[in-house]
């Protein structure tokens, strides 16, 4: 046996090694899915750096640009989702059904709920299962209402004011300034829920569209 081995060239030895490794690998059951260890240090760094969240206005920009490289998940129960304010492109996935929602671990997933707490809980659940691109929408739906649909425009310069106004109009809201808010500090709270929001067409492709390109050689 050993004698046979010494007669082989280096290439032939390597080929033999590959053959043996391949033969043994028939029995291999690669680790796929299932349990992933939670790494508190890694999570803490994500939180400290703030990469676990996305400001509501950034989300608004992405929706206006019709970007399709993220999935927006609304965590409220279906009744609240159907009755209340909805962010365009949002999919309704209550926390209990996250596991069956067909989310991929390498997708950019944005979580939104009434407030940040519920979204943060879902963030932890997904992170603990090894989902890598999960973010919380800052301020939840309240933040969306205050920052995007009815932003305060006192004390901001004209350019910024025009920008905020354009964004809020796009989503069927209106900017608030000093006078109106002095008169009534109420944003039309839940009444706005009924506003029909122009939904930009969701680009057809969750699956195949502009995924990252990777070159071979």
């Amino acid at each position, binding site marked *: 046996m050993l004698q046979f081995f010494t007669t082989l060239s280096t290439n032939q030895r390597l080929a033999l090694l590959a053959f043996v490794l391949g033969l043994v690998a028939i029995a291999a059951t*690669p680790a796929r*899915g299932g349990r992933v260890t939670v790494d508190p240090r890694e999570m803490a760094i994500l939180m400290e750096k703030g990469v676990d969240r996305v400001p509501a206005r950034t989300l608004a920009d992405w929706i206006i640009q019709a970007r399709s490289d993220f999935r927006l998940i609304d965590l409220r129960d279906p009744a609240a989702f159907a009755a209340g304010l909805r962010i365009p492109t949002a999919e309704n996935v209550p926390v209990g059904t996250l596991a069956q929602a067909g989310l991929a*671990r390498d997708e950019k997933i944005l979580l939104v709920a009434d407030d940040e707490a519920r979204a943060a809980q879902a963030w932890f659940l997904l992170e603990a299962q090894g989902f890598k691109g999960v973010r919380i929408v800052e301020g939840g739906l309240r933040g969306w209402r205050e920052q995007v649909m009815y932003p305060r425009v006192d004390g901001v310069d004209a350019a910024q004011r025009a920008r905020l106004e354009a964004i809020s109009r796009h989503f069927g809201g209106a900017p608030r300034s000093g006078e109106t808010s002095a008169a009534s500090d109420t944003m039309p709270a839940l009444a706005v829920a009924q506003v029909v929001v122009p939904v930009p067409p969701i680009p057809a492709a969750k699956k*195949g569209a502009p995924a990252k390109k990777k070159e071979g*050689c």
Partner: protein
Amino acid sequence: MMAPFLKYGVFGSETSLVVAFLLGIGFGFALERAGFGSARKLVSQFYLDDLAVFKVMFTAIVTAMLGVTYLSWIGFLNLSLVYLVPTNLLPQIVGGLVLGAGFVIGGYCPGTALAATATGRVDALIYGAGLYAGTLLFAEAYPLVKGLHTATPMGQTTIPQYFNLPYGLVVFAVVLMALGGFAGAGWVEKKMAARKAAAQAAA
């Protein structure tokens, strides 16, 4: 290799670009040392004189595949965390043919063109310019080709999943395919060398 450092904040995204640069230099160096910085060497595989490119690429595939298989078998690597490029069958076949045609005509593929440019080869420089021009053209014409680009989406598909075969069996089959390919390549090279020698003797 970079992932844990980036993850634990040992270095930020700027530093990771520097690391990527160094890795790229290393890759280019390996390509150049293997002789792949020369269009003659690269296209000689299409004339069947020298199948080094084929052998190197298949060796890389088998090595990486066995490494990933064993690392995930012992539980060190979770395969579901590895990014898979989604399969779009039709556009990927078309893209493969376009890249292959470019390879035959230009004598380089993208990585080797950059490596060869770094050693001062003018043909590679022109090839690289064409590469970027083509990329720009694709980006500008995207609305026109979008239908093709997103056609036949199959999601993140793998051969074991699609054909419902055991993972290990596919690994072994690929190893056999590679070994058969190496033996076949060696045979073809010898045959072509003999033919060339005969032609020279005749002349």
